[in-house]
């Protein structure tokens, strides 16, 4: 190299020294960065927890938050599987504290940049219905039988559960508002006359109440050339896809510093994390792992319909369930739920 571009000549002739005072300052700043990253992971965790899939809802007694159990294994590299129950309070004056289960899903996080959400039907039998054991996931949730649920998911589905989380959709609205709303693209004009959700095609900025209406939508319709038609032939798959798009949009908004008040976002997330998890280190561990997550995959458990001798109708894992569960737990590609109706505005 000649003199002009000899980078050695560009060096500071009297560089500073770096001692204990500088080290202490760096550690203080590093600790603050760690906290910030944990918050980012927390936002993603809450977004993911908020939006599993949902199947037909029934009114039931909501799980008592004081009785949530979390049994975290502190193995640093072990994947985490957390059952997420999203509830809502039915409208009307006489709900008497009852809640509707909007969704039951399992969030799987390992050391990769991909998180997975497996949605389970509420009417999945947890026992052997042919022999009169007609207990379902929904009733186990209603009865707060977390041990029973964990055992069924381990023995029946092959998924070791690390913890349970319960979240109400109103908290999702708070989170969306705290990050300043989210951006979603609709492939066509959409409506749900049940939930009151109506929107035109294209990219839209949605606030918390809109997002909750979309989350709870069970009869979303799109305007086709020949009139209004159901958004997808397989409604539940469509819902899972929409929920995944919402989760991604929340994370995008949070990471881009969206929202008029970052303090508000912090407060919401702190509150949700405090209320949702037991303080045994699982929340912090998940937040740390989720801070690296860039992609969310979601799918539903394949099921087949079963009618019991007493004419109860429910589901049990179908023929393809084993391969889906294997891929869900071990990291293979899973069948993505369709999200074509609603997607994020980013990159498009």
């Amino acid at each position: 190299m000649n003199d002009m571009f000899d980078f050695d000549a560009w060096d500071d002739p009297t560089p500073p020294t770096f001692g204990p005072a500088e080290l202490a300052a760096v550690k203080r700043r590093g600790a603050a960065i760690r906290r910030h990253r944990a918050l980012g992971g927390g936002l993603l965790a809450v977004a993911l927890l908020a939006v599993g899939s949902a199947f037909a809802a029934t009114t039931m007694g909501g799980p008592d938050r004081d009785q949530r159990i979390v049994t975290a294994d502190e193995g640093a590299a072990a994947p985490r599987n957390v059952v997420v129950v999203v509830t809502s309070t039915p409208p009307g004056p006489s709900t008497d504290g009852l809640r509707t289960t909007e969704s039951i899903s399992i969030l799987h996080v390992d050391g990769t940049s991909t998180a997975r959400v497996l949605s389970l039907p509420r009417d999945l039998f947890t026992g052997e219905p042919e022999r009169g054991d007609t207990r379902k996931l929904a009733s186990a949730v209603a009865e707060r039988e977390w041990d029973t649920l964990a055992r069924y998911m381990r023995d029946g589905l092959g998924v070791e559960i690390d913890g349970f989380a319960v979240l109400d959709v109103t908290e999702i609205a708070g989170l969306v508002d705290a990050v300043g709303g989210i951006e979603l693209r609709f492939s066509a004009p959409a409506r749900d006359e049940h939930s009151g959700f109506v929107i035109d095609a294209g990219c839209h900025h949605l606030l918390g109440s809109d997002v909750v209406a979309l989350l709870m939508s069970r009869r979303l319709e799109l305007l086709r050339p020949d009139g209004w038609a159901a958004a997808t032939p397989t409604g539940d798959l469509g819902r899972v896809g929409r929920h995944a798009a919402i989760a991604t949009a929340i994370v995008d908004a949070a990471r881009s510093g969206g929202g008029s008040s970052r303090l508000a976002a912090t407060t919401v997330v702190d509150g949700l994390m405090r209320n949702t998890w037991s303080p045994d280190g699982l929340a912090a561990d998940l937040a740390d792992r989720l801070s690296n997550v860039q992609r969310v995959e979601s799918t539903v458990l394949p099921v087949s319909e079963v009618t019991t001798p007493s004419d109860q109708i429910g589901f049990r894992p179908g023929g393809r369930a084993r391969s889906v569960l294997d891929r869900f737990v071990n990291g293979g590609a899973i069948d993505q739920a369709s999200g074509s109706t609603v997607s994020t505005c980013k990159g498009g």
Partner: protein
Amino acid sequence: MVSVDFDERFATLSSLAYRVAYRVLGQREDAENVSQETLARAYARWRTISRYDEAWVARVATNLALGHLRKDRRIEGVAPWARDTTAEVASRLDVTDALRQLPKRQREVVILRFIADLSERDTAAALGCSTGAVKQHMHRAMRALRPRLTPDRDATGPTPMHSAWEGPSA
């Protein structure tokens, strides 16, 4: 123990970050700030990056310094060291401008190899790619940089600037 390892490496890594930042910024105070921010980020992720700490620190310090330069120019219209009139300053300006126009991966390779003085192997480790990929990015970067840094090369043959960007010996 994470903190012990970091403490042991602190002085070495700080000096590296400062040297890289100073080469880009040419300004002591800003280079110190970049160095501190780089080391703080390294501390926050020490468990992950400690195996290739020097490469990681060099890359982050460079990116922070370039970001600082961009922000500084937006505010003041020109980099702080460019307010001087030395030929060295003009050269820095040319080089950093040319670097900013490179695709991200090519820019990182050039910076790690030239400004941070990393070997091809360390550069590959820092970027998570093979040494072959490093060579390929370097080759493409050189091809893109030459016309920007040697505008009259056809008339006069290779200029000093041209020869400077032939690259360090591997």
